[in-house]
């Protein structure tokens, strides 16, 4: 098919509602990086925008403004519990959006993507369950500088421990983060390695220590990616609990 034969398809493609062999043919054609078709899709998006904007206007509920803008309000000090849902939303959006899509779309199957997303969702749900459960203790922590890592540790003897942290730099090449349980007596014990997402947010779900009452702090260190550390190499922060 040449460009003229796609004349009636640009708007449907730009709306995301083109299906069947026509969708396949246009997508194959777009792989040739056709400047004409890309330009026409841009114009179609504009045209669709005009149609969408002609929708009868409906007043949103008055509380929606507060609800939406509250998400972007400057953080208060000390940080409150609202950081956790925000961090979870950020983590989910990144994994649903740029992270997985940019990295893997070309080589992962839809089934693999769905499985990965389901795992992320399940993990976030687990953290929310801990947050809501009775008997959960939350301890907020903040680095000395506003730009440093901050977040919360959720501790529930039955459900587990969740570390929710933001402002965490992406570790350098060959490095990973490691979480540690620091007991009141004895040596720190490595619990789980992790990497933050591109927004600097990490949500780490861990099994509770055998004796939660003996837990003095949850710490995070930087370690060589291929190591099984027995003691922290470079301490990043420690959250007293």
């Amino acid at each position: 098919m040449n460009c003229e034969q796609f004349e009636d398809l640009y708007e449907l493609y730009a709306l995301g509602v083109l299906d069947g062999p026509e969708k396949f043919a246009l997508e194959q054609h777009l792989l040739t990086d056709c400047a004409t078709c890309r330009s026409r899709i841009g114009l179609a998006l504009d045209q669709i925008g005009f149609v969408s904007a002609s929708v009868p206007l409906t007043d949103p509920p008055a509380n929606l403004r507060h609800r939406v803008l509250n998400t972007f309000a400057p953080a208060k000090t000390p940080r409150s519990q609202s950081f956790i849902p925000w961090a979870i939303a950020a983590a989910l959006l990144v994994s649903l959006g740029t992270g997985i899509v940019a990295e893997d779309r070309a080589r992962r199957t839809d089934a693999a993507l769905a499985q990965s997303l389901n795992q992320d969702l399940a993990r976030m749900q687990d953290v929310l369950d801990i947050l809501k459960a009775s008997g959960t203790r939350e301890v907020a922590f903040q680095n000395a500088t506003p730009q440093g890592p901050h977040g919360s540790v959720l501790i529930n003897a039955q459900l587990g421990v969740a570390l929710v942290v933001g402002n965490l730099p992406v570790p350098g090449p060959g490095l990973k983060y490691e979480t540690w349980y620091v007991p009141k007596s004895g040596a720190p014990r490595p619990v789980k390695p992790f990497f933050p997402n591109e927004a600097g947010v990490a949500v780490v779900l861990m099994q509770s220590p055998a004796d939660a009452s003996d837990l003095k702090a949850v710490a995070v260190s930087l370690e060589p990616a291929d190591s099984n550390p027995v003691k922290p190499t470079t301490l990043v922060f420690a959250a007293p609990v």
Partner: protein
Amino acid sequence: MLSLHPPHLHYGGKVDWNSQSAGVAFWFRHPGRPCLSLMIADHDAKGRGELVGRLKRREAEAMVELYDKYGKLIYSIIFRAVNNAATAEDLTQETFFRIWSRIQTFNDERGSFEAWLVAVARNRAFDHLRSVRHTAAANMPSLDDLEDTRLFAREENQSDRIAKQRAVKQALEGLNDDQREVIELTHFEGMTQTEIANKLHKPLGTVKSLVRSALKVLRSAAGTGASL
């Protein structure tokens, strides 16, 4: 830009704005040589560029301005699609969060900001409707890809956009009932032509013909046809 010499001129003006645009109508008359002129100043384009810049600098106050300017439109687009206030609220919140998290990818020298905002809102609603309708995602284009700001047409002069917006609205009103119905189902509810044929119990060929003829009318009104 006009160069005016106020001592020799009588002049006046009128500011007109709505949720999406602003224009300034201006007239002047030279003593002894009556004349009347009008210009539309694209003040909004500059403001929009500044707003995008502030959003990119992560200024929370910019989100307040963004919501006040586009919140009603975004909510309305989503509400029209999902027809449920609670769901529309959730998706509106998700839309603003997505705009905030994706604003760094937006190039305001290349793409139309308003068209992009509307696309982000529409895609949130369509995503929801797809999940409700259990539409097989594998058979559909990715809505994420359709938010790539490199796809969007270059930002036009605001007065041109206003004129095109009005022309498209008039064109929509001029469609016959069948044409308008298929356009509403594709543009406001994200249905494929196959889904529309099933919903309306019409042959697929008939639906395609209706869509084609309606799009031709809209294309002509928006000036986005092949002749460009």
